[in-house]
């Protein structure tokens, strides 16, 4: 991967709000095509500020950002929004059309499509997101999960190279999270770069390969998720908690179960316990 040119290069980026509050400090990052990256950290760590620099909503006070080897510091938000799609935490804030169908059509406006092409693309995307039945409904009358789906659909229809999600699993049930996972897996197959800000430890632990931890506007860790989220010192600094599977394996270790210190994921702990119970009592002596 290192021989490949990064799709996003962030070099020595700093950002201070007009009142002087420092939100980003010396950020250096390389993100590659097809990568799935998580950004985690406590409230106010600078996660949302960082992603806002990628589509021009916030301009760094110092430093440079390159997308596809082009400096984006002077690019307009309109140009950047074709390359970088952000789905914000509160989806309903980015929906404003009168109907679900119009929301998608509005999103396609800047592509100068013909009426037929726009209708076709709208139909496709409503079908893909199971939103056809809400076509005529006001976005304001959708449930939280449905309005999140519509916000994602209105960005996906623009087919940007970089997709950024701010807390995508918030308020979502298991079926919707599964739908979201399938969606991002498909986008990765299409070589999209996906960045996810999340507090959902279990989701990150199971599905996100690379995690960046932020605290006080700085990056304090960047590496494989299972390694980053198992470091108690980093977890504490980022106001996170250990994944439940790891908490459980540590509790098993404390109880005297042997060789549990190497168990991290749900699958590993489950496999260990299945083997242990089979060995110790045999299925005939099931409890």
């Amino acid at each position: 991967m290192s021989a490949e040119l990064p799709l996003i290069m962030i070099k020595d980026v700093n950002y201070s709000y007009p009142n002087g509050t420092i939100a980003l400090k010396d950020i250096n990052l390389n993100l590659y095509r097809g990568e799935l990256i998580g950004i985690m950290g406590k409230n106010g760590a600078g996660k949302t500020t960082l992603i806002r620099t990628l589509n021009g909503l916030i301009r760094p006070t110092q430093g440079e950002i390159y997308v596809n080897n082009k400096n984006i510091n002077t690019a307009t938000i309109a140009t950047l929004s074709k390359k970088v799609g952000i789905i914000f935490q509160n989806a309903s804030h980015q929906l404003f059309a009168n109907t679900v169908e119009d929301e998608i059509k509005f999103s396609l406006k800047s592509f100068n499509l013909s009426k037929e092409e726009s209708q076709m693309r709208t139909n496709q995307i409503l079908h893909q997101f199971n939103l056809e039945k809400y076509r005529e409904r006001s976005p304001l009358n959708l449930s939280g999960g449905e309005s999140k789906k519509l916000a994602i659909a209105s960005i996906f229809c623009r087919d940007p190279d970089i997709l950024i999600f701010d807390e995508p699993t918030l308020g979502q049930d298991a079926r919707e999270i599964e739908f979201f996972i399938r969606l991002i897996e498909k986008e990765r197959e299409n070589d999209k770069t996906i960045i996810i800000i999340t507090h959902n430890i279990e989701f990150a632990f199971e599905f996100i390969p690379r995690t960046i931890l932020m605290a006080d506007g700085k990056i304090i860790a960047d590496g494989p998720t299972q390694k980053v989220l198992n470091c108690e010192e980093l977890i504490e600094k980022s106001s996170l908690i250990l994944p439940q599977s790891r908490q459980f394996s540590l509790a098993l270790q404390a109880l005297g179960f042997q060789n549990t210190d190497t168990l991290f994921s749900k699958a590993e702990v489950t496999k260990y316990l299945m083997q242990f119970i089979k060995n110790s009592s045999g299925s005939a002596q099931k409890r």
Partner: protein
Amino acid sequence: MDLIRFEKFFYRYKGNEEYALNDINLRIEKDDNFVLLCGETGSGKTTLIRCMNGLIPQFYSGFYKGKVFINEVNTVETSIANLSTEVGIVFQNPENQLIAMNVEHEIAFGLENLGVPPKKIAQKIEESASLTEIEHLLDKAPFELSGGEQQRVAIASILVLEPKILILDEPTALLDPQMARKIITLLKEIQLERKITILISEHRLDLLLPFADHMILMKNGKVLEQNSLEKAINGENFQKLNLNKPVIYSIFMKLREENLFEGRIPSSIPDAINSLKRYK
């Protein structure tokens, strides 16, 4: 006496053909202590909560049928203000319900409207701020606070009215995991100390299950089950619903499927460890 009772209650929002609540029959009593309201997205949890202080049908327009009683008072026969001393609700985004110039005024607001004497107000603010650990924030403007601090201010400003039941709609959704755990631990302490009933709607079940005593399960606008936590998580409804089940639950369900475990499914890590002690 029931704190909250729904009798054959139906509700649909204006402009929608589907019922958001469909034949709800539900009783919440004082002894229910800490109640967890669970359901898939769009199952009607928030709508149900809006009925619990009269916002539905008094504020939200729509069609309704049936009755909701709070402390034996029909919610259409009294004002939302009167109901607010019985039922306190904290919504998902606390920022939307904080309106005063500083935290002290925010907490005082409800009491002033009820005509409580100033001396009594000062004493109640002190108690409520101490319980929610926000004494150091009283001079600050709500918008200056972090998400966790805002959430605690919203809880304090509701608690000060001494409701018999405190309802929170996804109170930890916007908080980082450590702050979320802190808020839920605090709520459990408040529930025990004040001896009130707390009802929480949440998707973070790994965080909530260790604290809850009862569970209400909803699907498609209906209440599927209302039960003790232990019975509910060991039942079929919980198993079938698309909820974000805790890792511990998934591990023990797998053991059960493989005929390696026959006990009840644990709700927390200490509970899980207890059920494995027999092997040590």
